[in-house]
């Protein structure tokens, strides 16, 4: 079976969701759909590492895989389109995870957008250094976005490293950082790199070279990138990598539109005023606020939901067995959906 790793990931999600969500919530999670429901589910069920790690997954594919899982009797239907793993399913999942563990460094929620930008930057930077080293100036850049080119020019001018030492420092830092990878072969990343007279492999080629399935390769590649980003965040050992990462992190957090709303919030406008100013529906602005609450740990929600209501909602959430907004609403009728979502966003994870 060609996509058995993906099947493992889906079964893993089914286990974590405990029969409380449909198969399609897994699709939305892996696609990284930026809706409050998906974002909140990811946090509630601790599936944030998998967020947007299969961005192109289609409905058909997940339908087919779900059917296979069901016909192997690894899961059974609970009610209303929800599923749970059977005992055999649990066993199979454990076996599969032992064989192909989900990379421990994977962190889609934190790094899904910074990761892409970081890869564009570092792959282009390495190509440029390699050509400089060989005194070659005529070559086609492997990344085409103008923004990345502008970044590179800027970086070479202002990085604070002399041109002839950038390569050596980057080699040292990358090597050290990649040596700390636990469960991934660093070749996953380095095979993809392009330099003077040596064009990097595509993802498909690299997975074939390493003799692992494409899906598993894909997660390992993301895991490697996320590992680098996490290392840079945690440690001061990587000053050059840090310079490359810098500016990608702010971009990761909020959707552009939510950022705008957040800026206006900080200027003291209320939701109505922002909706009018931005010519958007109030419900959209509310979605933005929920998003901000998820990203900004320091974001204070007291001016949207009173402390007392917060407590009631949290209490209802912990006594309800499903974590569904509808059920919480029934338990706390005086709270509206916005307030419930906001509280769950703020305190949902790690309850």
């Amino acid at each position, binding site marked *: 079976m060609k996509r058995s790793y993906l099947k493992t990931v889906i079964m893993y999600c089914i286990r974590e969701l405990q029969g409380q969500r449909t198969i399609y919530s897994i699709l939305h999670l892996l696609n990284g759909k930026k809706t409050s429901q998906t974002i909140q589910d990811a946090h509630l069920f601790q599936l944030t590492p998998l967020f947007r790690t299969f961005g192109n997954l289609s409905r058909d594919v997940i339908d087919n895989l779900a059917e296979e899982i069901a016909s192997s009797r690894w899961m059974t239907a609970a009610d209303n389109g929800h599923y749970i793993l059977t005992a055999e399913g649990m066993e199979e999942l454990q076996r599969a995870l032992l064989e192909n563990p989900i990379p421990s460094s994977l962190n889609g929620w934190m790094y899904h957008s910074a990761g892409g930008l970081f890869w564009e930057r570092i792959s282009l930077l390495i190509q440029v*250094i390699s050509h400089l080293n060989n005194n070659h100036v005529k070559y086609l850049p492997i990344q085409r976005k103008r923004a990345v080119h502008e970044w590179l020019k800027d970086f070479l001018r202002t990085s604070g490293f002399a041109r002839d030492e950038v390569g050596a420092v980057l080699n040292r830092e990358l090597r050290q950082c990649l040596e700390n990878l636990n469960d991934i072969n660093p070749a996953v990343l380095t095979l993809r790199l392009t330099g003077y007279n040596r064009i990097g492999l595509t993802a498909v080629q690299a997975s074939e070279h390493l003799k692992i399935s494409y899906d598993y390769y894909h997660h390992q590649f993301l895991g490697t990138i996320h590992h680098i980003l996490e290392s840079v965040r945690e440690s001061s050992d990587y000053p050059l990598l840090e310079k490359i990462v810098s500016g990608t992190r702010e971009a990761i957090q909020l959707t552009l539109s939510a950022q705008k709303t957040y800026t206006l919030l900080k200027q003291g406008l209320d939701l109505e005023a922002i909706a009018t100013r931005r010519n958007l529906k109030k419900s959209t602005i509310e979605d933005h606020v929920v998003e901000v609450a998820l990203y900004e740990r320091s974001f204070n929600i007291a001016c949207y939901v009173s402390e007392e209501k917060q407590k009631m909602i949290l209490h209802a959430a912990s006594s309800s067995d499903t974590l569904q907004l509808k059920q919480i609403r029934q338990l706390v009728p005086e709270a509206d959906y916005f307030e419930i979502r906001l509280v769950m966003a703020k305190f949902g994870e790690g309850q």
Partner: protein
Amino acid sequence: MRLEAILQKKFGYLAFRPGQKEIIESVLAGRDTVAMLPTGTGKSLCYQLPGYMIEGQVIIISPLLSLMQDQAEQLMLNGEKKVIAFNSFLTRAEKKQALNQLNKYKFIFVSPEMLYFESVLSQLAKLSIALFVVDEAHCISQWGYDFRPDYLKLGEARKRIGNPLTLALTATATSEVKADIKKSLDIMDCSEIIYSVDRPNIALSVEKLDNFREKTDRLLELADSLEGPGIIYFSSKKMAEQTADLLRDKGAKRVMAYHGGMDQESRILVQQQYIHGQLDLICATSAFGMGINKDNIRYVIHFHMPLQIESYLQEIGRAGRDGNQSIAIMLYAPGDEQLPIQLAESELPDKAQIDWIEKWIKENPNAILNISQFEAQIKQLSGLTDVQWRIFNDFFERKSKSGLDYRRILQEMKGYYEGRIKFKRESIEEVYKWIHLKTCRREHILSHFNEKKSVSIHFCCDSCGLELKDFPKNTNSDNQEEPLYDWKSHLEFLLIPSE
């Protein structure tokens, strides 16, 4: 001598290739020019060089985004910084910014769709335009009417920005296509510089087989025995991919597929691997090739029948740019002509569909002024595909703006589509005839472009006598053992200068 001096200084070439100088001189003399040079003989230079000699901007209209990017990159490679290509590699903000300061640039690449926007036209109109270039101008006729109604706007756009000096470049054009180009751009009095479409160093061969299976077997044999690098063209992404997989399964390591469905980065990498000799064979759709600068391609095989002689010539023209002996092979099995016919017919709405829509509009007359609002409804009731809908919508909106009654519009539409389908069927028929030809294939192609075969060619075509053992494989790169991969030494190789 002045031109040669500039050629050397700006581009590092010592001499012009055939045709280039004549075209450049025509442009520099201020004449609108339609120029036809065979594929792979340096058409871009014909606008780049005059660009440096005339004050003002060079606007290049490019039909394909990938081609546009390739050409912009070639210019930048040459050290030209004042280049901008309006395509998806720019964010919307970047586009807007660039649009507001167009006079900062020398070479401006624009897609025909963009000329729909008044905001673009008005900015262009402010410039003093040195040269208005329509690249791959045969697209105006070849698929312009169907897929690129935008091309019909080119003449209008040209007028709007002050009828600048115009150069239309194409690799292949029959007299009808040339007439279309001139008419559409409104440059009826232009000078025409036409070079032969013939590429004497490319031998032509057609192999007739009994069925799909035999074709596949033969393809594997050819890929194994011909000297590469090569390209195999397919008309579907899936077939391109499956065949590449099949070839790799059989042990040919240096083979990859290339098609428009791949992500951007993979496409760049595969293209570059091929150019750098890390790959020997590409299984491709027609998305591959335009703008690829690789001199030593030795063979091009067509697994499916092309839609017309013109596109076939373009595709095989990618072989042998270094002037060395190369070969083009078309594989044919009975019934192969059905696929292109189906493709051609499915692109356009048919009579019955148009009748359905007519009935619907009669019941919903308020839709006439705002037909695009009813996309979902109309699609559902008539079964139009996305492509068909786009064509329908463009046609309808254009005509209803000029105040025509909807019944007249739909009537015209039917007539127009019938004409297009007839034309396409004829084009396919022509390829079919060419495949079954018993006489010289080259002569036939040349006569299609009103040319005569003037020189005798040793390896001409299978009708004139050709054996594949004349094109043997000299090297065998498949057997080379790949060295063990060590990531640390690879990093070092990339980042540390070798002593």
